[in-house]
Each structure stands twice: as structure tokens, then as C-alpha cells.
């Protein structure tokens, strides 16, 4: 069980990693930040799950990141793609992340209204991850960012669901879904690269 100090530290880690991920445009940074996000999420999940189950979340998350990283490192060097969709500015992304922070700050003190006995840090972490994950999904049409957005949303959901469900089967299936999402992302990333001309 994580105490209040590590839990709030995990929230700060999750918040910085998710915001950094929203802003960063280099895939190496993106993957590193999502890996950090998983570390924070595992600490938050450990508030309700045994450490072994929380570790499963961490390990499968990192395995997904590894699958995506291996795929991206084997692809030709990518030039930063310009988003065709509006909005695309750094200031806008930071502003939207700020609104999620405000939302998380507003909801966390009322954590007991959602689930009796749930920690404010868990609610804050969930809102931050789900909110920023949706932002990521809504502001990009690149495969990598969509997959990272989905992984972020699912991570936020897992942090919350850990407070209400402790079944090993659910943890196993959620881990399979996260790993499957990573592998699917790797497959789609492979396909989305134009073949090199001979």
C-alpha cells in the first residue's frame, strides 16, 4: 500500500509526464514520458492493489512502450510531421493541460463522493491521465500519438478501477489489452511508413 507521500509524488510524476508527452514531439521523449507515467500509475494503483498486481500494470505498460520503441527505432528517420488539424500550437496544448489540472484539483478533494474510501490522490491521477489522454486523442491524427493517447486513457482508468475491483482476472485481461494495444500500435506504425523507393 502506498502512503500519502508517495501517492502525491506519483500524482506529480504523472502530471508532469502526461503534460510533457502532450508537448514533446520527439518519439523518444514521448515513450520515455509514457514509461514514467506508468511508474506513477503503478504507485497509485498500489494504494488499493497488492504490489504484485500493480507491478503487472507497470511491466505490461513498459512492454508496450518497448514494442513501440523497437518499431520506431527500426523505421527510417522521421521528420517532425506538421499536424493538419487545428489546433496545433504549444500554448494551446499547455492551456488545455492547465484546464485538466484545474478539473483534477477541483474533483480530488471530493473523492469520497465518487467512491467511499478512495484517496484524493487516486482521483487526481485518474482525472489527469484520462483528461490528457483524451486531449492527445482529440488533437492529433498521427498513429503514435493516438496509441499513446489510448494508453494514457487506459492507464487513468486502471488507476481508478484498482480502487473498486481487485480481481486477478481483471488485472490479467487489462494487462493483455494494454500489451495488445502496444503491439497493434507497432503494427500500424509499421504500415503507416511509406515504403522506401528502390
Amino acid at each position: 500500500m502506498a502512503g500519502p507521500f508517495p501517492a502525491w509524488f506519483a500524482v506529480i510524476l504523472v502530471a508532469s509526464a502526461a503534460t510533457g508527452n502532450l508537448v514533446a514531439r520527439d518519439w523518444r521523449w514521448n515513450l520515455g514520458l509514457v514509461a514514467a507515467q506508468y511508474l506513477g500509475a503503478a504507485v497509485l494503483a498500489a494504494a488499493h492493489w497488492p504490489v504484485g498486481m500493480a507491478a503487472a500494470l507497470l511491466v505490461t505498460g513498459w512492454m508496450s512502450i518497448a514494442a513501440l520503441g523497437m518499431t520506431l527505432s527500426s523505421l527510417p528517420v522521421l521528420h517532425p510531421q506538421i499536424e493538419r488539424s487545428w489546433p496545433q500550437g504549444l500554448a494551446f496544448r499547455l492551456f488545455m493541460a492547465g484546464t485538466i489540472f484545474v478539473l483534477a484539483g477541483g474533483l480530488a478533494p471530493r473523492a469520497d463522493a465518487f467512491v467511499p474510501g478512495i484517496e484524493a490522490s487516486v482521483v487526481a491521477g485518474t482525472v489527469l491521465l484520462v483528461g490528457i489522454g483524451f486531449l492527445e486523442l482529440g488533437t492529433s491524427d498521427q498513429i503514435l500519438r493516438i496509441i499513446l493517447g489510448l494508453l494514457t486513457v487506459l492507464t487513468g482508468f486502471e488507476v481508478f478501477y484498482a480502487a473498486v475491483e481487485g480481481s486477478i482476472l481483471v488485472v490479467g485481461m487489462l494487462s493483455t489489452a494494454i500489451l495488445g494495444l502496444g503491439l497493434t500500435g507497432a503494427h500500424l506504425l509499421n504500415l503507416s511508413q511509406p515504403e522506401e523507393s528502390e
Partner: protein
Amino acid sequence: MSAPALWIGIPLTMGAVSFLLLSDRTVARAGGITCLMLALIALIIPIDEALLVGPLSIKIASTASLLGRSLVIPAGESALLVMLFGLCSMWFFGSEAAGVARQLVPAGLVITGLLIAALAVQPFLYAALMVDIAALAAIPLLAPSGRPPSRAVVKFLIYQTLGMPCILLAGWLLAGVETSPGDLALTIQATVMLSLGFAFLLAIFPLSDWIPGLMGASHPYVAGFVLWILPNVILVFGLSFLDNYAWLRTSTQITTGLRVLGLIMLVSSGLAAAVERNLGRLMGHVVIAETGLTFLAASLAIATGTNMVFPFFIPRGLGLILWALALAVAREGYPELTFQSLGDIGRTRPWAGAGLVLASLSAAGFPLLAGFPARIDVWAGLAGVSSASAIWYMLGLAGLMIGALRMLAQLLGPRTDEPAVPEETSMQRAMLGAAMVALIGLGLFPRATEFLVTRFPYMFEHLAR
């Protein structure tokens, strides 16, 4: 042996084994025969009852344990197993004629096994996770190597992934509603979350635009399989919610909501079908319309306690097999699949052309075809509830019919004096012919599948009983 080991373990194992098979024919036959055998076992051998065969006593136990939870396939689900595996065997046998056996069969078996597991897992809420994993397994099918993934595939991935947390959260909220039924706020939250989850999973309007896109961008046979099996299993999963929660079942708002949603989906896809020019996308509109029809049937079934939903299952499966196979055969000579490009298919690929027309007419509810009896029952039921709904229903079906007739007019093509040699292989003719005979046969003898359809409600305790 346990039922989950048989109907979940064998498809998953065969799926893994068939990845190793090299020939299209071998893979198609392995998959088809496996599913046919599983369908026959479900039909003949009762679950949880000892069957004496000479000196041997065979008993299939309904329950197996997995990571502290149970997988249960009760005797009441045997009719569903017969239908799913029977139609899967047709899909897999047909995959050779469609030229996608090595692509479809291994992943198709795995998806089937996972979806049966979704129906078997207890508590039933966890099915959302299995459905998500099955959807992920379908991505390599829908986005095969050699082409960039279409936007529709990415949307499919996003929606199926987002549906899962919504359903799981709804399940948790529903448990709260059961303990404090007077809590209106909790009830609204649970209903909204559940609706959102199923809107994502079943591509309910307006989240349905990826379906025509998927049919236009992916191989039609492969996409057809995914768009047949996933919505069918998710519908059964959705009905489980209605069966398990009495307040959902007895809520008039839910019944009305299902009816309105069904009509919106039917009418919007009917109108889109009437003006569609691509045959793949047209099939996508029909898939959406079929989901809308099932919603309408479900609203009537809940209100009247009758078995109106399940008569749609088999005609829908047969119609989609025929349509997808005909599109796959047509695609060999006409990669674009537009009305304009398919102008002379009636002469060059007459079996595929006939299959397309028959499947689209059946979907529109043309008399004496498989789709007609279920549609006329729903129309009659709707007329009893609301005349306006019955008129909108007719408008939706009229849109589908216009789409089918436009297709017929285009496929016949201009009259020419040049003799045309049909280009289909004998295997393609045989498979298309069999599917057409099934579609017409089921229209002429709608009670032929009654022995199954009347047993479908046994999987529920309260619905349609």
C-alpha cells in the same frame, strides 16, 4: 471435458495451429471443419448432462475456472454456439473462394474463441475486456501489410478501446444502483455510462461513420466477418445487461430510447444507402441498418416479452456472408467497386452480381428472401406501438431498397453484342450458389431455423421468456 475448454480452448488452439499452415485450401478447410464440428457438438451433446454412447458416458461440464473466476457456458447457450460456429464455418469455407483464407482463418478462430470467452466469463461485465482484446486481434486483419492503415481502422481501434472502460465503469455503477435503487443521480450516471459504452462498441449513430469507411478500405470479406461477429456478440452482451438488471428492463425510457435510436440508425443508413455509389460502403450502411433493426426488435421484445431479436441473427449472418463473398469475387476484376466500374459484372461475373443483388434485396426486406420474415414482424410490432415509428421504419427500408435497385440497374449494364465468358472459378460459383440457395431457402421456409431461434432465449433468465 468442460464446455469452455471445448468452445473456447479449441478455437484458440486451432487459430494458433492454422497460422502454421501454408496452403489456402488447407487453412480454409481446417477452420471450416473445426467450426462445423464444434457447431455439431453444441447441437447434439447436451451441456451438463450425461450422454450414453454405447458403453461410454460423455458429459460436458459447463464451468471452468480461470484466475479465480469462472468461465460458464450453460446449456441455454448451446443454440447460440450452434449459430456462431455454424456461420463461422461458412465464413471460413468461403474464405478460400474469397482468396483470404490464410489472412482470415487463424485470426478469425482466435477472435471467435475470445468472443465466446466474453459470453462465458463471470461476472458477465468482464466481457467488455474480452471484446476489446478480440477487437485488437482484428486490427491486423483490417489493416493488412502493404498498405497504410485507413482512418476507419484507427477509429475502430479508438472506439472499441474506449468502449471497454465505459462498460466496466457502468457495471460498477449498476451494482450501486442495485443496492440503492432510489438514488436517481447514480441511476443517471450508470445509464449514461452504459449508453456511451455501447455507443462506442456497437457504432451507434453518430459514431458509426467508420463502418462504411472500413468496408470501403479493407478487404470486404475480412471486414464483413469482423462486422458480423463483433456486433452479434456485443448485442448478446448488451441483452445480458437488460436480463440482469430489472430496473433497466422495466424502464420505459430505455425501451423508447432503443426504439428511437434504432429508427435513427435505420433511417440515416437507409438514406445513405439510397445515394451510395460504392458497393463496399453500401454494405457498411446495411450493417448499421441491421444494428438499428436489432435495436427496434429489442425494444419490442422488452415491451411485449416476445422473441423478436433472435430471428435477425441467422439471416443477417447469411446475408453478410453472401454480400462479402460476392464483393470479394467482384473485387478481383473491379478493384474500385463503384457502381460505374462494375457496369458489366452481370456478364463477366454473373454469380457475384446475382449474389450482390440478392444480399442487398434481403437486407432491404424483399419478400421471399431470408431477411423478410423478421422485418415484417418488427414492422407489425412497431405499428402496434406507434404509427409514426412504423412510417419511419418503412422510410428506412425504402432507402435500403432504393440502394439495392440502383445496384441492380447498374450491374445489368448496357446491352452489347460481345459474348462474355464468366470469369469466376468453380469454387467461387459453388460457394456463392450455396449462400444464395440458403438465403432464398430461408425466405421460402422461414421456420427451417425455428429449432434454433426458439432456443436462443434460454440463455437469458427474463428476456423473451
